[in-house]
């Protein structure tokens, strides 16, 4: 039973990811597109953890830990970059 459900959960999470792509295309502002990146990090981590259990690959848990650590740095980088543009625009 549980061996049938785990692949279905992975599939469901990946469908969630693909649906989240819609916000990347539609999102009117860069902040909206960044929200999709936030969705990607949490959903990918959950999918990787379920896959680690399903395929019996413990290394995938380490991959999930790495991705979740990168997720914080990603938004830091996003906030840093456009700020400079805004500031240089104000200076001119």
């Amino acid at each position, binding site marked *: *039973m*549980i061996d049938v459900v785990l692949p279905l959960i992975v599939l469901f999470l990946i469908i969630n990811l693909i649906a*989240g792509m819609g916000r990347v295309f539609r999102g009117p502002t860069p902040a909206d597109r*960044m929200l999709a990146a936030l969705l990607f990090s949490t*959903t990918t981590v*959950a999918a990787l953890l379920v896959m680690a259990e399903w395929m019996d690959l413990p290394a995938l*848990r380490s991959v999930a830990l790495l991705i*979740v*650590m990168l997720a914080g740095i990603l938004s830091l980088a996003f906030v840093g970059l456009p700020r400079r543009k805004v500031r240089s625009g104000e200076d001119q």
Partner: protein
Amino acid sequence: MSVAETLALIFLLAGCGFYLAGTIGLLRFPDVYCRLHALAKADNTGLCLICAGLAILSGDWQVTALLALVWLVGLLASTVSAHLIARHAYTAGQRPITISKETKWLD
């Protein structure tokens, strides 16, 4: 199916429900603050429930510790991201929508 598997299954399916709610909120909510609100909370609750389900399923202390670490780091990353994105949107000139009769909720 044992009791542990049933419990794990309930946790995993509940986590999937929270993920679905987060994705629907991301796609349907009217402005960036509402979307952030939906995503940052619902997805981390889903991650918590999925980690709990997998920890029950694995029954191993090392795996459980790693899952707890993933969840805690995920909470930290999500909190920081939500704060930074909201502040970025606010300083970029976006204001939260206010409820009125003219508000179009579903764009």
